[in-house]
């Protein structure tokens, strides 16, 4: 590994600066900016994913040739991240839209409906 001879590991320094900058940009977007909320949420989630990438590729040696590249079980990591996405997005989807029983009406009606239902259930 030619890189290990160097006094200062440049990829680590670059990764560190990148993660600091992305943190500050995300914090600015959320706290200071007047951007629409949806945009802010999409933007900062993308920044978080990029930061995770910085950690994985610049700090965690996942693409290191000298370690043979074969010692990171990519399928396992992919499995983990895919499950994470399904769990979070799926739960949100089900809990936000799942209790609509097809009867028309706005959110307020739905909530009332839900409350009635839960009362019915607790009555049994």
């Amino acid at each position, binding site marked *: 590994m030619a890189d290990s001879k160097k006094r200062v590991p440049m990829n680590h320094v670059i990764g560190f600066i990148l993660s600091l900058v992305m943190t500050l940009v995300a914090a600015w977007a959320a706290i200071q900016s007047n951007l629409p909320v949806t945009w802010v*949420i999409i933007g900062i989630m993308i920044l978080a994913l990029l930061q995770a990438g910085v950690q994985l590729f610049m700090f965690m040696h996942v693409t290191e040739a000298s370690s043979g590249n074969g010692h990171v079980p990519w399928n396992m990591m992919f499995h*983990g991240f895919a499950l994470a996405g399904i769990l979070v997005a799926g739960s949100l989807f089900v809990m936000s839209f799942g209790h609509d029983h097809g009867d028309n009406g706005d959110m307020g009606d739905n909530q009332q409906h839900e409350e009635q239902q839960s009362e019915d259930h607790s009555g049994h």
Partner: protein
Amino acid sequence: MAAEELKTGPLEYRTQEGQMTIMGFWIFLGAEVVLFATLFATYAVLFGRTADAPTPGELFEPGIVLVMTFLLLTSSFTCGLAIHEMRRGSVKGLILWMIITLALGLGFLGFEIFEFVHYTHEGATVQSAAFWSAFFILAGTHGLHVTLGVGWATLLLIQIKKRGLTNVTSRKFFIISLYWHFLDVIWIFIFTSVYLIGMVI
């Protein structure tokens, strides 16, 4: 199996045992991703269910969360430097950067405990609302991982003092560096999806 030992490459990868152990740890990290995913899903679903307790928008303070984030990001960087020093064969450099990493980790924990105590005083406890249960379990599980990491690395520092840099000790330090960077990855998502979004909405 242990007879094969490569002459080149990083010390921790030279034996097959080292290679397999590191791969096994990656599998463990994959499982950790799923563990945190369930907690994130619970949090996302219970978002806004604060009942009579304060809302996250009222309690979350940008300053303290940013300090915590910078402490953890810096510790991830110094942890990377520690492994870099280890691969240059410098035990002294490894120990020095690892101690700095642990100090930053302890600083992070201190702020987190302060934050939790503050929230509890403001009436946001595990019992007070579904939202706060989910919050404390998610952030608390991460904090517990950091605490475990600090204890683990402290024991490894004692071990390397006694045994020096070998195939085994270098592998152990490499694995804890993976663990530490992973904690930073999880924190980035807590910072973004819990604190920042909690302050936006």
